[in-house]
């Protein structure tokens, strides 16, 4: 699902004074004339004829081969012009407009995780094709210094550009570059300025990224009238900073599959010593224990309770609960019962205890027997004894 946002930045256009020859060439349908005029050396005071080392331009048209749908034929605009035809280059050597600031020294480029990045330059109006090509290459070079991408490709074919231009939403625009597999699309709209920027080329940037929040509108960037690739790169770098900053972080890599499992050992009595595979893991209640998958031995010991032994199986990525119902040791129970009986006996008055009553009964019996025996042995009872019948 793509939730992209296009920010077509509107703003005042910068005017780059084109050389007279170039302006003349723009009026002609042939691109060669434009190329020639576009590459005319502009004695512009604009600095940065030499880009910073970090921006040492690699060949602008060398995207990853797999990702490069377009031929790597360098555009004519990037080839150094063989010569400036004096006839085509009227004297007015355009200077960089005063409002064109010198780009500040570039900080070391950010290293952002890779995206599949695609650059498309959409031209509107009477913009020469070579200017668009030079701009595209300049954007690619500038992004190389700012972004570490898995793949950085440029849209070369007019069909794709037309599709992008015709789109009304980001999903459509990303789909238009679908064959490239890009998940981030930088669209540069190149147009001719109007009003105070009449005669100048103005570029505005927009970022389309899958699942990204809308970046702030980029400031319109005047390119001046001269299409100088090196200068364009330097101009583009600061203008692309907010675009780059808005590139969303790539989705985090999926977590590695778990290789262990969790054992939750629940013991019915606290303070029991718990061992797993012979290794002490603490006294109950114990924290969850991380274990390798497979079968494990469990031993639970507590004084006065019957030792518990069990086996359980751990599965990777799963939590296994092992309940240990400890039972009281019968010997201890017996001893406790005896102790309770003893205490109960102590609570009985001495004259009600069994041995007191038993002793008294024994004494009565003994006395009775003694009396009877004494009476028997004291002589014949009263009277004359008579024998019994047989």
């Amino acid at each position: 699902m793509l939730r992209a946002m296009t920010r077509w930045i509107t703003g005042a256009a910068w005017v780059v004074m084109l050389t007279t020859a170039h302006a003349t060439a723009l009026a002609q349908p042939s691109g060669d004339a434009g190329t020639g005029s576009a590459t005319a050396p502009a004695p512009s005071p604009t600095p940065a004829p030499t880009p910073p080392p970090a921006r040492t331009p690699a060949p602008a048209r060398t995207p990853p081969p797999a990702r490069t749908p377009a031929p790597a034929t360098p555009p004519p605009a990037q080839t150094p012009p063989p010569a400036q035809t004096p006839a085509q280059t009227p004297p007015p050597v355009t200077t960089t407009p005063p409002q064109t600031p010198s780009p500040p020294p570039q900080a070391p480029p950010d290293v952002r995780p890779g995206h599949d990045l695609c650059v498309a330059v959409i031209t509107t109006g009477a913009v020469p094709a070579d200017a668009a090509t030079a701009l595209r290459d300049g954007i690619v070079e500038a992004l190389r210094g700012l972004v570490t991408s898995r793949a950085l490709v440029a849209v070369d074919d007019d069909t794709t550009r037309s599709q992008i231009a015709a789109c009304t939403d980001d999903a459509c625009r990303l789909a238009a570059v679908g064959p490239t597999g890009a998940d981030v699309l930088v669209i540069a709209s190149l147009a001719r300025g109007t009003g105070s920027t009449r005669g100048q080329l103005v570029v505005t940037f927009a970022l389309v990224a899958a699942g990204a929040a809308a970046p702030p509108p980029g400031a319109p960037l005047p390119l001046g009238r001269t299409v100088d690739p090196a200068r364009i790169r330097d101009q583009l770098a600061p203008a692309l900073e907010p675009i780059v900053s808005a590139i969303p972080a790539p989705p985090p890599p999926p977590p590695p599959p778990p290789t262990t499992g969790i054992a939750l050992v629940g013991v019915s009595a606290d303070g029991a010593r718990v061992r797993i595979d012979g290794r002490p893991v603490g006294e109950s209640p114990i924290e969850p224990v991380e274990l390798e998958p497979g079968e494990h031995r469990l031993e639970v010991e507590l004084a006065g309770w019957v030792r518990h032994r069990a086996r359980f199986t751990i599965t990777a990525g799963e939590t296994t609960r092992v309940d240990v119902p400890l039972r009281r040791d019968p010997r201890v129970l017996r001893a406790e019962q005896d102790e309770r009986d003893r205490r109960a006996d102590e609570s009985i008055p001495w004259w009600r205890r069994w041995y007191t009553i038993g002793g008294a009964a024994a004494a009565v019996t003994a006395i009775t027997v003694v009396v009877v025996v004494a009476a028997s042995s004291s002589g014949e009872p009263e009277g004359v004894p008579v024998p019994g019948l047989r």
Partner: protein
Amino acid sequence: MTRARCILLSTVVAALAAGCGGDPVWTVRTTMIRVGAGAVDRLDLTMRTRDPDTRFPARMATTYEGGSITTAINPDGQLVVSIDGARVQAGLRDDGGSLVYEETFHGGDGEAGLVIMTGAVLRDGTLPITTSTETYANFPPQDEEVFEVTIQCMVAMDCSM
């Protein structure tokens, strides 16, 4: 408590059993009619069984009370108790014109049977001067049982002295 009660009950039962095991004591009351005390030289009380298969076992004659009473079993298996005249005279009591003499006996354990008791007053040691009614009694007698034997002077005899 149950154990104590058992002990106590056993004791009582044992004591009762011990106290109930003695020989019965019984009495023979002899009433003499028209007989004077001075005429009594000896009183013989005889007990014979009615069932011929039941007898008093033979034994030697035995004297009691300083020789004043002699018990003996005759060859017929009869028990003869001979009481000296002086003892009888000393024990006589007047009971409305009759003389009554009582002697206490005990024992008699053995086979059960019916005995016939008779009495005789003898003068000069061997001469009976009285006749007796037969008294039937279950033998052995119950404790404190009293057997009545009545004897009277025979006709033509002077039993006054």
